[in-house]
């Protein structure tokens, strides 16, 4: 037995043909010609409401369009534009009513290019009212309250399994757990809950074979999945792995570094006030052996409330290659109302990154300003010493991508909640 799927009737207001795609499920149908809302259950289709919309809207998916959504066939049978008004501005969204006689009804909503696939729930989720922000739980998933508003119907087309009227209002409460959203709609007659799932617009365009490309989605929608959050999480995990690897490398370096002392002066003295040139001297030649490695020059000067400056030149005897560098050692201390204080250090380390093996000597030109008349100092040269700096630079650079992604995720989250009842203070969205 096969039943007709469409009944044909005519509008009592303007005479235009009226199609009923949902048969006995339709309670109201809108005349596509004059916009009157008709009682679909009345054989004469008496007028429930004459055309009242102040503005005409055109659905992006035409009525009667069939599409395959998540493997199921659906037909667009109704379209309504609803909106909420905040501070004198009305924000409109579209609701498409989909029908399949074997599956019942389903909805698609569209706001600023953001689409949701919505199904009415058969029972209310469990609600917790604790704290400032209530939440509801469905199948162990927690949905945070997003917004409470009064939605008004502004425009209708097609047929509906309820008695639709332009001007209808319902109190809506939205709870989000991206990419899902639970919405409650309350009218004096009934309370219904529905579960929405965020859908990329391109998927809608493919499902219904719509021409062209979907308009670009603007802003961040309440239940829009956060592309950056999971990425930030996985990047943070990967970063911890990097930290572990680098820590292991540091450990290996600490164990394997030879730290071989290749030269050390005995304690030497010079007379501080003398001109630098007269104090300059050249060390005996010393041998740097092994492979090319770093070379650490440690300067220890027993300065007391003063400074010493050492102009160094490391010269390779064979090639004449010269490494010039200057080091300052300064140490000050005293006592004030906060107690004892000190600044600087009597010891300085300089590391030359890679010095090939060979015969070397140091040319040293010291100068100093200290209260004492003689200054004791010492120079120690070691090769192949472990340094942390390259590892730390490496860790800092590796931290940049996860930090960048985390900032994007944070930015998306704050953009999402900016539109909610929980916008940061200063934003006057909180209308609850």
């Amino acid at each position, binding site marked *: *037995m*096969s*039943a*007709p*799927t469409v*009944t044909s009737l005519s509008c009592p207001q303007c005479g235009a043909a009226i199609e009923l795609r*949902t*048969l*006995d*499920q339709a*309670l109201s149908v809108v005349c596509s010609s004059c916009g009157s809302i008709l009682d679909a*259950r009345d054989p004469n289709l008496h007028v429930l409401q004459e055309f009242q919309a102040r503005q005409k809207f055109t659905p992006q998916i035409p009525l009667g369009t069939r599409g395959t959504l998540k493997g199921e*066939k659906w037909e667009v049978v109704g379209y309504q534009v609803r909106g909420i008004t905040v501070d004198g501005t009305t924000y409109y969204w579209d609701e498409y009513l989909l*029908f*399949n*006689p*074997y*599956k*019942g*009804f389903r909805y698609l909503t569209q706001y600023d290019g953001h689409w949701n696939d919505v199904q009415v*729930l*058969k*029972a*209310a*989720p*469990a*609600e917790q009212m604790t704290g400032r922000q209530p939440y509801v739980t*469905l*199948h*162990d998933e927690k949905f945070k309250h997003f917004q409470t508003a009064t939605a008004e119907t502004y425009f209708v087309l097609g047929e509906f*399994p*309820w*008695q639709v009227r332009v001007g209808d209002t319902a109190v809506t409460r939205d709870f989000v757990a991206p990419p899902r959203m639970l919405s409650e709609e309350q009218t004096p*007659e*009934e*309370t219904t*809950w529905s579960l929405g799932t965020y859908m990329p617009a391109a998927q809608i365009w493919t499902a219904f074979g719509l021409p062209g490309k979907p308009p670009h989605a603007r802003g961040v929608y309440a239940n829009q999945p956060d592309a950056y959050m999971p990425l930030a999480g996985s990047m943070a995990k990967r970063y911890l792995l990097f930290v572990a690897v680098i820590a292991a490398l540091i450990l290996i370096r600490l164990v394997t570094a030879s730290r071989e002392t290749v030269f050390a002066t005995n304690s030497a003295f010079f007379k501080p006030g003398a001109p630098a040139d007269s104090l300059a001297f050249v060390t005996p030649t010393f041998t740097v052996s092994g492979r090319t490695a770093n070379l650490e020059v440690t300067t220890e000067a027993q300065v007391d409330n003063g400074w010493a400056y050492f102009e160094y030149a490391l010269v390779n005897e064979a090639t004449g290659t010269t490494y010039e560098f200057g080091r300052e050692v300064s140490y000050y201390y005293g006592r004030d109302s906060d107690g004892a204080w000190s600044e600087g250090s009597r010891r300085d380390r300089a590391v030359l990154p890679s010095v090939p093996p060979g015969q070397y000597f140091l040319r040293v030109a010291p100068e100093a300003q200290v209260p004492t008349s003689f200054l004791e100092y010492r120079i120690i040269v070691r090769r192949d010493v472990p340094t942390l700096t390259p590892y730390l630079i490496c860790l800092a650079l590796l931290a940049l991508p996860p930090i960048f992604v985390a900032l994007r995720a944070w930015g998306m989250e704050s953009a999402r909640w900016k539109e909610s009842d929980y916008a940061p203070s200063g934003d006057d969205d909180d209308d609850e």
Partner: protein
Amino acid sequence: MTGTVIPSAARSAESRDLHLRHGERVDVTARTADCPNCGATIEFRWSSAVQTVCPYCKAVLVRRDLDLEKVGMVSDLPPTSSPIQLGTEGRWQEDGFVVVGRIVYRYDRGGWNEWYLRTMRGGSAWLSDAQGDLAISAPATSGIALPAANALQVGQSYAIDDTLFRVASLTRARYAGIEGELPFESWNRDEALFADLDTDGNGDTLRFATIDYSDGSPVAYVGTYVELDQLAARNLRRIEGW
């Protein structure tokens, strides 16, 4: 607001029927009978049907021993988009069923179908079909004291068959038509109260209950929302274009 099969009347008649079946019962086994109104041969899907509607002349017929007695007429049912029809077969809870009858209910903001199922093991159940939402229910097994119709309020909770249910909505509906074989022989055409109960604000379960006030004393039914796919249904109505 005239004439409705009181669904509960129907259903409580059914419980009498069940009672009879477990006790001593006159078994009406004939599979066919002639319509006393138009003479057409009527085939029964359920051999113990108490009442049927002649599919040809729409006479409401009640079995009296081996004969059928015409007790009224019904008008044509409005076209439906339901995928279920008389003769649809399926499986639910490891028991096969066949759809043998239907009651159509209407209220000011909608309507629904109650399909009467007979199961292979000799049981029965109701498959309700409202805006594509399907649910299977059977009379509650525990005999709890149900509230009077005028004492019932949305939000109140009652334990029915060991589950706590909350009154979610109250609907005043009336009978809008019948077809096929049904387990009762008389009906009440007044508007009657139906209470829909859900599982106390816990959307994790698809169980529900209804309390039916159409027959003097309230009758509770407990059931589960189902998807058509879960019923492995055969002989569904073929809907053109789908």
